[in-house]
């Protein structure tokens, strides 16, 4: 059964936290826009965007123990990654594929995030593979606690895993099997489906015969919640509850954040064959950043001056990142052949 929360955990967020959330959403958007521009300028070969998804991602990020709890993300999670600690330069480096790029040493395409230091687990491209892996991570957390290898109340240790994917990807058997483990073992596991209504061109009606992805939670005995993914505070609220449950050993949650990508699937895509311009325009009006801005302005947490200030900081950060990445060296060709096996001493 899908439930929506009533307790407003977001009421406890400080002004500073709210402004940070705004900042990461804005920074993500500006960085993302720059990537599109760089692609049009043929500076980079590929970009896949999170534009439109920022509220879902940043709302979620602030509810977990960022940099400590495990996150197993997907390619659209730029804002989530920034909020956890991936820097604009890291991202720019991956767009170019420069030497020592953080996630993969430039072996992977951009937006295949990884940072061991931040407990961001390396992601691949085949969709949904991360979900049963994330269940395995959650299993390990519970195992360590049961075996006395980890204190369940130690906040310096990861106490849950947060994984994300698109609604289309829930069609994969991988998703089913991961959710099932999470339910059977009541794992500290949160799966957020960012439902943007399309899987590339395939609309949700051709993807599944249910109205809400969250309805599928019942099949696994996990809690299912549905939230307006363009409302960052609403996302924070449902996530905070899910996090609480995970920390308390109360089990797994499936969060469905309803949102929309306001740009094509990727820089290789042209969405005009499958989405009407009217539909896209309609959703642009529901832009999660403008919406949050309005809330913050109403509550006088933001001001017009501050908005300008944030804009110019974002612009500077993006510029700086681009300059740094452009200046960075390319990997040596032979770096293609390292790291096939971890050395035995690694254990």
């Amino acid at each position, binding site marked *: 059964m899908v439930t929506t929360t009533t307790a407003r955990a977001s009421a406890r967020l400080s002004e500073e936290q709210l402004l940070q959330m705004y900042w990461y959403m804005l920074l993500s958007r500006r960085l993302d826009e720059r990537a599109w521009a760089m692609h049009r300028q043929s500076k980079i*070969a*590929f970009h896949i965007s999170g534009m439109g998804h920022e509220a879902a991602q940043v709302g979620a990020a602030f509810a977990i123990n960022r940099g400590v709890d495990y996150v197993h993300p997907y390619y659209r999670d730029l804002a989530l990654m920034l909020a956890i600690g991936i820097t604009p330069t890291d991202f720019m480096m991956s767009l*170019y*594929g*420069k030497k020592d*790029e953080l996630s*993969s040493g*430039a*072996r*992977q*395409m951009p937006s*295949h995030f990884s940072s061991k230091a931040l407990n961001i687990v390396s992601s*691949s*491209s*085949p*969709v949904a593979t991360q979900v049963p892996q994330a269940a395995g991570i959650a299993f390990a957390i519970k195992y360590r606690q049961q075996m006395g290898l980890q204190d369940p109340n130690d906040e310096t240790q990861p106490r849950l895993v947060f994984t994300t994917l698109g609604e*289309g*990807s829930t*069609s*994969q*058997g*991988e998703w089913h099997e991961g959710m099932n483990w999470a339910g059977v073992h009541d794992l500290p596991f949160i799966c957020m489906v960012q439902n943007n209504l399309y*899987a*590339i*061109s*395939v609309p949700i009606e*051709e*993807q*599944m015969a249910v109205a809400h992805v969250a309805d599928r939670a019942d099949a696994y005995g996990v809690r299912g919640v549905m939230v307006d993914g363009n409302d960052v505070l609403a996302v924070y609220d449902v996530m905070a509850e899910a996090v609480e449950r995970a920390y308390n050993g109360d089990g797994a949650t499936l969060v469905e954040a309803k949102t929309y990508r306001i740009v094509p699937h990727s820089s*290789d*895509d042209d969405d005009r*064959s*499958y989405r009407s311009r009217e539909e896209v325009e309609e959703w642009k009006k529901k832009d999660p950043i403008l919406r949050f801005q309005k809330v913050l302005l109403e509550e006088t947490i933001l001001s017009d001056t501050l908005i300008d200030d944030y804009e110019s900081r974002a612009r500077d950060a993006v510029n700086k990142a681009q300059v740094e990445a452009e200046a960075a060296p*390319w*990997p*040596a*060709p*032979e*770096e*293609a*052949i390292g790291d*096939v096996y971890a050395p035995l001493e690694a254990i």
Partner: protein
Amino acid sequence: MTVMTLIDAIREAMDEELERDPRVFITGEDVGERGGVFRATQGLHEKYGDTRIVDSPLAELSIVAIGIGAALTDLRPICEIQFADFIHPAFNQIVNEAARFYYRSNGQWHVPLVIRSPYGGGIGGGLYHSQSVEAFFAHVPGLKIVVPSTPYDAKGLLKSAVRDPNPVLFFEPKKGYRAIKGEVPDDDYTIPIGPARIAREGRDLSVFAYGMMAHYTMMAAEKVAREDGIDAEVIDLRTLLPIDKAAILASVKKTGKALIVHEDNLTMGYGAEIAAVLSDEGFEYLDGPVKRYAAPDVPGVPFSHPMQEYFMPNPDKIADAIRDLAAY
């Protein structure tokens, strides 16, 4: 004859087979209105409609299984796997199921299924949009595997695949989709699945390749002919399973030397089987070691350009491998 690209030839083959036989339908991710991410099915949805050009859920094992089920009823499904890198979730359905139905039912049930998929590197796709996967399936009796390198072969072989009563994996070198052009007859024709093609006759050594590497090998052969006077025979294998042993042995009987080229990584790549056939049945023809020129044994094609180029074979590198073997 019309000059067209590889992908146009593939699209035409499907269009004509859809036209010819109402049992033919297409399913896969984004094959409908979107016309496929590489545009292989562009225009087909408009022409044949929702019933025959079916956007699938994002779930490869079921794309194949739906194809198997439909094929069991004697329809003629063409399933598209968007990138060969994403065929792995369907491995069970292909290897344990499609390949075994005929044998396991003592010939009662057959599976006339085509699985099309773009494969190969050099397009900035990184580990997961660049894979070559033919070697896995070439180990599986009951499957047929086709990898065309020219528009002419692609169209004729794809039509044969659609008309074949067995499951056929049809791997398309995506780097060549638009880069490779060639003449294609205007009337209906097929090319039989099985026989390799002598792409270039030669006396000094034999080079075996397929897909994009067959294309590159032709360029390399012209180069060494021009620059070094080496007369390489180039065999475009086209069909990997069943393997055309006769053609392979005949060529090496003539030339005495063999080089196998693939962009898949070396160990247990398809070249291993050719080398094994030659080192047994062709042993007495061999005047030198059987050489394989292949990608390095790493877990994928790296994204960043310098590393990708290091990984990928290309005409120059293949030419060097030819020269080395010729000098033996």
